[in-house]
């Protein structure tokens, strides 16, 4: 009987440790095992992505509708090209939707905000969002401000 209680407590310890690891993975680091592999790919080109990273959120009206899957330089246009995975159930984005890079709060992470358009044709797999607005980079704004001050 004594040895049984002992074994049960050891089992509980190991289970608790495993559960803690799982909780760390899912709750704390936001690891998504059931990566919504489904979903279609949409591209957007920006002059400056200013600190956007892979796995950043893509949201519309603040609701997440996808995530950034890859970022690279478009060699022909020499602009940043962002590849986004949009969830399958989001099948209402028209082709004149616009994308802009936003910041959550003053110091928060960067994400992409989609503003829907008015056309009847919908965005499909592999299409590119043409209407984009780059990230606001603080140095550029300050630079412009100073330049204007000087020219006055």
């Amino acid at each position: 009987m004594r040895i049984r209680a002992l074994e049960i407590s050891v089992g509980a310890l190991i289970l608790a440790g495993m559960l803690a690891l799982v909780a760390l993975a899912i709750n704390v680091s936001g690891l998504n095992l059931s990566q919504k592999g489904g979903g279609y790919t949409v591209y957007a080109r920006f002059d400056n992505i200013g600190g956007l990273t892979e796995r950043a959120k893509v949201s519309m009206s603040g609701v997440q509708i996808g995530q950034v899957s890859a970022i690279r330089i478009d060699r022909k246009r020499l602009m940043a090209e962002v590849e986004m995975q949009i969830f399958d159930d989001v099948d209402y984005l028209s082709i004149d939707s616009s994308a802009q890079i936003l910041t959550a709060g003053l110091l928060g992470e960067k994400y992409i905000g989609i503003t829907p358009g008015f056309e009847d044709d919908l965005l499909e797999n592999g299409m590119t969002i043409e209407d984009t607005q780059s990230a606001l980079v603080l140095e550029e704004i300050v630079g412009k401000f100073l330049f204007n001050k000087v020219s006055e």
Partner: protein
Amino acid sequence: MIQFLQKLGAKTLNRVAAVGRAGQLLSQSLIAKPAPMMMLPLLIRQLYFIGVLSLVIIIVSGLFIGMVLGLQGYTILVDYGSEQAVGQMVALSLVRELAPVVTALLFAGRAGSAVTAEIGLMKATEQLACYEMIGVDPMRRIIAPRLWAGFISMPLLSMIFAIVGIWGGSLVAVDWLGIFSGSFWANMQASVSFSEDVLNGVIKSLVFGFVVIWIAVFQGNDCVPTSEGISQATTRTVVYSSLAILGLDFLLTAMMFGDF
């Protein structure tokens, strides 16, 4: 002058010999093939004494450390109007640093010293010699289960410490100070990465667990078999493991997170 040189040489030789004996102990107890059926009950018993009984101190200190982190982080971050980042701060500092290091320090004090004292007393009362006399290898019967138990339970304890600490942090930040729980968790999830932060924390705790239990077992097996010798060995276990933990932590952190 000559005497000083002689003392220095003797000390160095002693240290080197001790390191050699520690390596010998490790190889003998790990390479000695354990008979699994015999080993399992012994291992479970040691897991109970080393792991389960350390659980309370780990949970209580994890909770308080998480709560303190939440409170301190809040008072600083609120000046910059970014108190939502408390979740991120608590989670990163716990998962990367505090959980492995503090757990290992507590583990050295709670379990390491007990193991040293137990083995030391066995040696002093000649129980180890008795085992050898009746043809049971004390390396297998006494040392190996304790080594494995420490090695297994340390990462588990460290994970539990981290999760309890984060829960404590959220308790203070969300329930008490009133940070919106959505931004608390979302900021945390956006900044903590599983492979970078969580797994590196696990690796750290594995290394620390191994080092602590190795030092504890070795000091017990190597002590002068008197009551004074046991007390010195217990002290040495705590001192050496604490120093080893902190030193190795710097090394591991530099390897994992330093860019060079």
